[in-house]
């Protein structure tokens, strides 16, 4: 029987192609189904004219199986874990089904839409993080026309951000809005510009990031709700908030200047904390020197006076003798070391005393 052998071969090759060609979805069954239909029709034609050639029960069985398969695919549908099955009967949405296998009426009556309700969608504004062919993150390309925007104080800021959104109401999402992706993107751009436009540049660059994110998220949600888009904005995340590249050097220089300010102050502080202790040390030295002087002076004075008092004590016992002795001893010491010229005033009268000053000078130099 050529039919059955061909049939068997076709099935086998179809099954073999499965793992490579298509995944475990219902897809690969479709051609088989059509084939089956065609074949069963052919068989019917063959059977109808007189039932000649084939054994009746085999054909009948094949026809039953074929009909069952057709019915199975016509009356059921499959919802994947990330999807929601929205069943539309004659254009009207009638029910929603969770993941699994579900009953439906065949095509013209009921249709099924399968939006991916659990998937978190990402929209990038201001840049595109292209993926390379092997799935690694590729180069990020900037989109200045999307990311450059005016601030409230007429500056320009470069903002890249991503928006995470999810389907909140599958029915609204499917039937209320034409291009959800495009709409989210345009609303995101519009909202970000509106929020940025209401702020000055400095807070946007620094402390108001979170506030900006929240404001944009809120505004986007309001706009999308007004469209009844059935979309929930889960998060708006600012990626890069910078001054435009044309002026970023100037902004960096401001940071550098800020650091310079700190550095100069710290250096001055370091100077202060060096010189003041040094001065304290110096002051202490001056004070100690003065104290030393005082004590030394007093000690010397005390010493001198006590010497004097001792001498005085002895002197009082024999004033004249002591005085004379002291005088002579002193003169002895004084005159003992000096050059002396003795001139007798009476006999030497009329003689002009000659002082050989130059000789004296020479002697002095020689002595030195």
């Amino acid at each position: 029987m050529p039919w059955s052998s061909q049939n068997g071969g076709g099935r086998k090759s179809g099954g073999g192609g499965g793992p490579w060609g298509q995944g475990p979805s219902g897809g690969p069954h479709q051609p088989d189904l059509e084939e089956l239909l065609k074949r069963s029709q052919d068989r019917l034609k063959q059977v109808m004219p007189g039932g000649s050639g084939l054994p009746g029960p085999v054909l009948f069985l094949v026809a039953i199986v074929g009909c069952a398969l057709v019915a199975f695919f016509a009356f059921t549908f499959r919802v994947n874990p990330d999807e929601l099955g929205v069943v539309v009967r004659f254009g009207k949405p009638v029910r929603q089904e969770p993941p699994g296998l579900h009953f439906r009426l065949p095509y013209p009556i009921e249709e099924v839409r399968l939006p991916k309700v659990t998937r978190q969608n990402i929209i990038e504004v201001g840049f595109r993080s292209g993926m390379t062919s092997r799935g690694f993150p590729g180069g990020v390309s900037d989109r200045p026309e999307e990311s450059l925007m005016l601030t409230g104080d007429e500056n320009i800021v470069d903002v890249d951000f991503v928006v995470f959104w999810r389907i909140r109401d599958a029915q609204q999402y499917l039937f209320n809005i034409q291009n959800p992706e495009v709409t989210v993107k345009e609303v995101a751009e519009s909202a970000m510009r509106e929020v940025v436009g209401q702020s000055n540049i400095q807070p946007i660059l620094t402390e108001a990031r979170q506030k900006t994110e929240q404001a944009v998220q809120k505004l986007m949600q309001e706009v999308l709700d007004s469209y009844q888009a059935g979309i929930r904005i889960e998060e708006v995340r600012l990626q890069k908030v910078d001054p435009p590249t044309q002026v970023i050097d100037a902004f960096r220089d401001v940071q550098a200047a800020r650091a310079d300010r700190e550095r100069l102050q710290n250096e001055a502080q370091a100077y202060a904390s060096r010189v003041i202790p040094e001065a304290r040390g110096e002051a202490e030295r001056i004070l100690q020197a003065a104290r030393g002087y005082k004590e030394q002076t007093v000690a010397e004075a005390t010493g001198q006076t006590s010497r004097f008092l001792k001498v005085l004590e002895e002197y009082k016992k024999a004033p004249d003798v002591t005085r004379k002795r002291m005088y002579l001893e002193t003169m002895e010491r004084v005159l003992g070391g000096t050059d002396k010229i003795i001139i007798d005033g009476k006999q030497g009268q009329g003689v002009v005393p000659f002082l050989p000053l130059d000789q004296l000078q020479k002697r002095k130099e020689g002595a030195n």
Partner: protein
Amino acid sequence: MLRALAAVVVVTVGAIAAAAYFALFVVHVNEQAIVLEFGKPVRIISEPGLYWKIPVVQTVDTFDKRILDLDTAEQEVTAADQKRLKVDAFARYRIVDPLLFYQAVRDERSVRSRLGPVIESALRRVLGSATFTDLVRDKREALMKQIAKQVNEEGKEFGLEVVDVRIKRADLPDQNQKNVFDRMRAERQREAAEFRAEGTGAANRIKANADREVTIIKGDATRDAEQTRGEGDAERNRIFADAYTRDPDFFAFYRSMQAYEQGFKPGDTRMLLSPESEFFKYFTNPGSGNATGAPKR
């Protein structure tokens, strides 16, 4: 006989199927339809469901009921304060009167060419009466509402309801953008200079304070030191005075002796002496033992 019956059944079913195919139509929840009878509109259907029509005689045109996109081209607008802006807006609209829409616009693709100019002129009109800051910062929301309202008025003629017109981008033309960049750069440079000056100022202040403190510390120390030295000197004077006032006469003699000894250092002094001085008393006259006595003063 059985075969004839089967043929009749097949033909009947086929006829019913064909009739159903040509006479029935489905309007989806995201659609609306008008039924035309040789071009004359006879029914407008806005509720989803299964409907019938007379085959051949009546035809059905469906229109989207969802919110549709319209993105306008970027255009330059002059604000009331003569500042120029590149404005890129988008609109969201829906078809509310399919018949009017059919008559005025016919299909979605033509909306851009009909509604686009309306939006553009509304933008120009509204933004032309607002200032730059109104648009960027203060009244953006209100201006967008105003534009949407004007566009909506005109959109009604096309059977459209304009849900929203939003300014997507409002940027400066390149030339002005360059000016803004220059200004931003100048402002930042000023700011940087200010920070550096502040830093230098603060540093100078700190250093000056430190120097002042150093001077004060040293001054205080010198003052205290001088006081201490003075105390020392005073003490010395007191001690000397105490001792020397006990016998001023002897003190004078004693001190003179010390001064002679200190004053005439050996080697640098030459003396002319008269042998008649007290010292030489016995030098010339060793006998006069009674010559000793009070020294001459």
